[in-house]
């Protein structure tokens, strides 16, 4: 399998802020590679480096077999970049934006229409509308269409689903899956853990460092303890109580339940009694499989301790 991105030991500083430190990873052809991490983790900086908008301070970054610094001219013809912030011309119509980006890349909408038809068909009825007047989901589809219009080999999507409703998000990921037929490699960043499961491989990134890179399933399996899901009617009180319980190691809210780990990976009746003593009844405790979020939180915890 050909390597589309090869990064080794990349660092980038902005003044005194170390945005990225010693980042290394590889992305293979045809992969959907996700970067998951909180805001400020360095995802956007990394993507702008790959998109040739920034130059790394240290390390070597090869994209599509070209050096990102010396080969930027050639690279820009073959990458599609969708910045986190909507960056198309709001005062141009849908159609005008698409045509403009096609011509700027020296191609036409017609030539690559098959590539974007799935996505563009959703917004085509509004092609005369100004891009600034589109809804969030439609903006995102237009931005994706514009990033794809020159049939890039690598698609860089910086938080494409932030601020988009759940239905549009699901639709969006469906579209990304379909793009693999065209042999387009995709790197995508997201703060949503559920989207991580849809990637082929995922890198967990925090404070400028990569904590782990693996298939999402494997990342889940990396969770080192037994995880219990605790449910009770009053969730907030429950969390407070669980955190004060001496046998608890970690407590994180997770949907309508609370994910907890215990010393020795087990709990006994004293927990029920303890919770009862705190005025919490109807407690339901089940062992559960760790999600990618659990693993991420575990890794983060380790990272901050170390």
């Amino acid at each position: 399998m050909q390597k589309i991105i090869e990064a080794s030991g990349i660092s980038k500083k902005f003044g005194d802020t170390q945005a990225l430190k010693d980042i290394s990873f590889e992305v293979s052809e045809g992969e959907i590679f996700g970067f998951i991490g909180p805001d400020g983790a360095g995802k956007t900086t990394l993507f702008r480096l790959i998109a040739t908008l920034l130059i790394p301070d240290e390390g070597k970054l090869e994209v599509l077999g070209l050096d990102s610094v010396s080969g930027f001219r050639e690279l820009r013809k073959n990458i599609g970049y969708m910045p986190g912030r909507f960056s198309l011309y709001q005062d141009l119509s849908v159609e005008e934006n698409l045509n403009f980006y096609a011509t700027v890349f020296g191609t036409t909408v017609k030539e690559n229409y098959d590539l974007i038809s799935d996505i563009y068909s959703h917004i085509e009825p509004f092609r005369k509308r100004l891009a600034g007047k589109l809804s969030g989901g439609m903006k995102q589809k237009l931005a994706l269409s514009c990033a794809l219009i020159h049939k890039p080999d690598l698609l860089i999507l910086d938080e494409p689903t932030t601020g988009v409703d759940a239905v549009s998000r699901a639709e969006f990921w469906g579209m990304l899956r379909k793009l693999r037929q065209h042999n387009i490699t995709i790197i995508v960043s997201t703060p949503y853990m559920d989207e991580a499961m849809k990637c082929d491989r995922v890198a967990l990134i925090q404070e400028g460092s990569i904590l782990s890179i693996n298939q999402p399933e494997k990342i889940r399996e990396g969770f080192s303890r037994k995880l219990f899901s605790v449910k009770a009617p009053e969730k907030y009180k429950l969390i407070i109580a669980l955190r004060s319980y001496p046998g608890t190691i970690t407590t994180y809210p997770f949907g309508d339940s609370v994910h907890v780990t215990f010393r020795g990976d087990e709990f006994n009746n004293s927990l029920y009694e303890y919770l009862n003593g705190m005025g919490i009844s109807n407690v339901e405790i089940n062992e559960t499989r760790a999600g990618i979020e659990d693993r991420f939180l575990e890794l983060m915890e380790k990272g901050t301790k170390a």
Partner: protein
Amino acid sequence: MRTIFYLIRKEFIQIFRDKFMGRAIFGVPIVQMLLLVPAVTFEINNVKLCIIDRDMTTESRELVNRLEGSTFFKVRFSTFSEQEANNLLHRGKCDLVLQIPSGFGKETGKGNPGRILVSVNAINAVNAQLSWAYLSGVIRDYNMNIVAENIGSATLASFPQIQVDNRYWYNELLNYKYYMLPGVLGILVLAIGFIFAGLNLVKEKESGTIEQINVTPVKKYHFIIAKMVPFLVIGLIDVAIGLIIGKLTFNIPFEGSIALLFLGSALFLVAVLGFALFLSTFSSTQQQFMFTAFFFIIIFVLMSGVFTPLDSMPIWAQKFDLINPAAYVMRINRMVMLKGSTFHDISREIYSLIVIAIVFTALAVNRYRKTA
């Protein structure tokens, strides 16, 4: 080349879709021409006089009548109190106090020199000098009359003396509007080109659209040229509008070649746009750009010689004007319009503008970074 065409087309679509821009581009030249050309003038009319006539003789009345008869002076006050006159001068109610002491008529009648005192408000030095010059002109005439009356006009005519008849070239009627209009035309083009082009680029930064352009294979000079061309076209249209207004409302003379004037304006615009785009690469918000633009526009305009003659500026200022494109365009506009100068006459200005335009544009292309 095709890319440049598409980039330019995009700029035009955006400019004309912006309702404010559309209005400003055509409204600003019309309003500026109609307002500034007649308003900005150094012609002095209505100098307010205060007369202290302590003499009250035919001779003193004659002098006052002469002043009143001139278009420059308006006798606003007559008083016998010097204190009141000074007070009026102090409060700005009058510009000039003329004191005629008692005995003025008697002395001149006797053939002795008459004495008068003139105090001028010199807050504005130019005004003060000009009003004094006008006043002394009137007094000189009056003087000649006294001499003629005393010795008889026939005798006076037989004295050898120099008769001066002057003629003003290029603007015979000394119509100030003819002088200002070519200048205002330059200021207009400067302001429109500078601000709109610079803001346009900074806007792309602010809205993030530049980020999307930067990852495309668009070349730096493509991008800069595409930002310049629309404003070059708009600037030249504004020059045309300005000239039409000048002809229709002020009946301004146009002695030289229109093509030459447009050549000068086009080169000037390229220089200004290049500089504006260069500056805009330093600003990350439209406010920042507006402030720097304001700073430079004022310097360019006030040092360009549009209001004050270049030759009376200090040497360092004249040196600075070697790189001030506005200084060249002021000269080109005035020389072509009023004097009918040919290309040969203004070749130094034209070549200088070409050099400045190339340098500023090169700076802009060079400073504009697609990568940080």
